């Protein structure tokens, strides 16, 4: 069971959260998007093997939708942010 960092509540057990999916997908502008873009938005998702940013809702907590960066291969948690925030890129460790 994952330990997810809610930016509002801190580290909480996965059972308090609901998963939604890829958080890098943006709803296109309905006025200008092509049909192809729109179908892409509704149906098509990448399936990366490694770090991925996902939507999780802290449904049994503060009810906020948050972005969680997670390595889907190793389950390593790489950061989280508010719905409108950005997750800071990992700081590469400088060689000693």
């Amino acid at each position, binding site marked *: *069971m*994952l*330990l997810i960092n809610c930016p509002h509540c801190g580290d909480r*057990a*996965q059972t308090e959260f*609901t998963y*939604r999916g890829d958080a890098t997908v943006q*709803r296109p502008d*309905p*006025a200008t*998007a092509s*049909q192809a873009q*729109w*179908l892409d*938005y*509704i*149906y098509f998702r990448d399936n990366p093997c490694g770090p991925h940013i996902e*939507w999780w*809702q802290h*449904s049994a907590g503060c*009810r*906020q*939708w948050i972005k969680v960066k997670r390595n889907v291969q*190793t*389950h390593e*948690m790489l950061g989280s942010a508010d*719905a*409108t925030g950005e997750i800071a890129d990992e700081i590469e460790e400088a060689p000693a």
Partner: protein
Amino acid sequence: MIQQPFRAPSGGAINRSKPLNFKFNGKPYTGYQGDTLASALLANGVKLVGRSFKYHRPRGIMTAGVEEPNALVQLRTGNRTEPNIRCTQVELFDGLEATSQNCWPSVDFDVNALNNLLSPLFPAGFYNKTFMWPAGWWMKYEHRIRKIAGLGVAPTEPDPDRYAKRFAHCEVLVVGGGPAGLMAALSASKSGARTLLIDDNVILGGALRDSTETLNGESAMVWVTAIKQQLVQMENVRILTRTTAFGYYDDNLLLACERVGDHLPPLEPSQSRQPRQRIWWIRANQVVLATGSIERPIVFGNNDLPGVMLSSAVRSYARQHGVRCGDKAVVMTNNDSAYHTIAALIESGGKVLAIVDSRSTGPGKAALDIANQHEVEVITRAVVVNANGGKYTRKGLASVDVNSYANGEIGNESRTIECDLLAVSGGWNPTVHLFSQSQGKLRYDDKLACFVPHASVRPQVLAGSINGEFATRNCLIEGANAGRLAAEKAGFVPREFVPLPTCDKIMEKPIEACWVIPVAKGRKFKPAAKQFIDFQNDVTSSDVALAYREGYQSVEHLKRYTTLGMGTDQGRTSNVNGLAMMAQLSGRSIPEVGATTFRPPFSAISMGAIASNETGENFMPLRRTPMHEWHLENGATMVNVGAWQRAQCYQRPGETMMEAIYREGRHVREKVGIVDVSTLGTIALRGRDVAEFLNRVYINKWMKLPVGKVRYGLMLREDGHVADDGTTTRISENEYYMTTTTASAGPVMSHLEFYAQTVWPELNLHITSITDQWGGMALAGPDSRKVLEKAVDASDVSNDSIGFMGYQEATIDGYPVRIFRITFSGELAYEIHVSSDYALSVWEAFMRVGKEFDITPYGTEALSMLRIEKGHIVGGELDGRTTAADFYLGCQSFKGSGTEPHGIKKDGHNRVMRSTKGSNMSEAGFGGMQKTGEDFIGKRALDRPGMVCDSRKTLVGLISENGKEIKRGSQLIEKLGDTPPVKMLGHVSSKYYSANLQQHIGLGLLERGEQWMGKTIYAASPLTDTYVPVKVVHHVFIDPEGALARG
């Protein structure tokens, strides 16, 4: 008869003043408090405890712990019976009953032991090779074979015991209470970190419990007791014994099973509040794995004879239970640890005839000293090649054949030693299971001849013999360091150092790997005796050789082909031996063959413990409405609707359930009824942008909804299909009150939050679920206004004051209520919502004032009937595949009234169903002008070809033409008698017997529904062999003009 003939008069951690009676295979025995079932059986001289899985060979107790492959028993009886229980782990209690498994009619005479003679028929992969052919015969064989090769029997009655579940959080979790674990727990706790120490056994100490070594000049257990004393006194420490950590999951979550009451005679749950077992969910910042190591056997001929045991087990029974496992013993080893067994055996009253050491270098000095001190012959460069049963010990060990041995080959020198016990040590395998579960990588260490942890992935520290560090002194040092390091990593500063006890320094000679003794050939050993690698699954060295010859050479192939390591013991005593043999055969190194992957659970966990207390009524939360008790008191039959309990109908004396439902349904249309609708999802929306938000989440328009008005709305998913429907009311300028269907309350809430928070965060609004805070009831029927007028305190609820789709606030008996003029039945109706605290009082007020109008409560069944009569869509229609147009677009009345959803193209369609001037409640809710071009969720998906094509299924009404019931889930087909496959035109989505129309009616989704209007088709239910002719009609059966609701 001598009681417990193999028990020493003193010694061991047992209480000789507390005798316990137990039964094994129906025969009564006595043991002592502190015994395991295994130690008590051994004390009584019971050597034969079971039969092997495949060949039904006699088997005895081989180990003293979780690694036991043989001594599996059926424990307890009746509804408490448990199969495949290792008797090495069962604590004895008074009245315990256990039986052998896998033998018939008895363990002493097993008919199926014939399999042993027929063993050529049972090679590796025998299922696949022999019995799957010919294909049809498998069905006949399977039952018989499963019975022959069975293990225990599962109980057939519900488990009467109580189980519990508990969460724990700590900075440092120490798994294992041996020398390393104790030091780790103590040094971590000195930093103030919350420390949890868990140990599988009853008594802390690990290997020290059996040790002859001293610490601080005293018996090692004196030191253990002192450390435990210190730990117990610290507030930040918790110790759990009898607790097995069985699973290591993401982010340092470990699951452990505490055997709270297994060592006590079972009590009925009513007599005891204590659970039988408790599952702990432990989230730890850092984990110290001090899980120790498990001894492994050496493989030789007939090595499964009762009387052949692990050296550590013999030591353990002697030191912990005062039990000698045999009178005349031989020890066989390839390392120094087995020399300690000599002392333990002699202490417990046994004799040791010889120790056979396979090593070219012989034993270390301290080890040799022990042998010399006890005048035990040391036979070096030799191995046991065969164990032999005897004439009078048919089912147990009588002698061993010892041969000279060098460079992996047996030499010519040979002798036979008569003995009734052979204690074997083939070295030690670190207990890496939890480490491996936590994705840690293993490395094979040639010097230590075992797999050791290589690299951790999780926040953990390893200490003691899990690292292949077998000397006590080094385990203590590693433990102290690990505890300190773990506390530091968790952000705690150790305030004091834990003193190391003074300790014997034993210079040991290293182990020399010795896995499978070459099969002894020659006249004396004909036919070659079976060499067992996996005792539980009866996998022999010749099975591994066969797997090699047939190309199953990788570890995973070997495992699956031979079933090596796939038993309930997970191959603890067999995996590495199997790998080593495969390596030898294929000329590869052991790491080249590979290591098996360990998965949870570490050892078997009962289903009861996994379910814990989440069974029966605690399986999921139960939601009750504020009127729940009233329903029960008034004869309601309750039904589960999701988590909710709702009243299905209120039966009167002498009435059948269906009679009650029909009466309730008729009563609503004739007089007045009241139904509990507290389960509807209710959501409060506040903020200046609520109207804009509603405009984007509903398909219809919301910008101009006046204060005091209710509007019906449909929500789509982004793919254009209908998600849910409900009403929203403008309570005040910036406050709206939304209702959803009962089932969708949660998903709709989450859906709204997602769009408000992530897609349109610029909109100013708050969304709050208030389902639990509000109760609701609907008054429906021609007399509903009269009842309402009478109930309210001096408010005007006339048609002028609160018209159709109107909203008004009032008080009833002083309680503030919200009145909505909406209907799901098509009758004149009101929904009255009130704070949950007062909902029952308001309900009772209605019952009181409604008496003169003959008000009656109705349940969900009548509700269903009424809404189907009115053609109102719910779950059966909102199945995630339907569009708004499937329900409404074709209706002329709908078009004409200008109430269609904004943005949906309506021209160019020939989807007119039939002309009716009426509308149902749903349509009536759409008001105002159509606005095109505005965005809402799902809109862009609506003009996809599949969404607008002419052949979509549309909502129709169905009437049974022969008076027979339309079956739930029926498919709609054109005619009967066609040869299947028959084209399915659609399906029945809801159905009921309309008590008001006195007809069986239904709603259906039918391809080009409008074209079938007035025609007869068939509702086919092949499952129930029912085919009903149905007439296709408009989906609103009652009052299509909607006059009743508006009146």
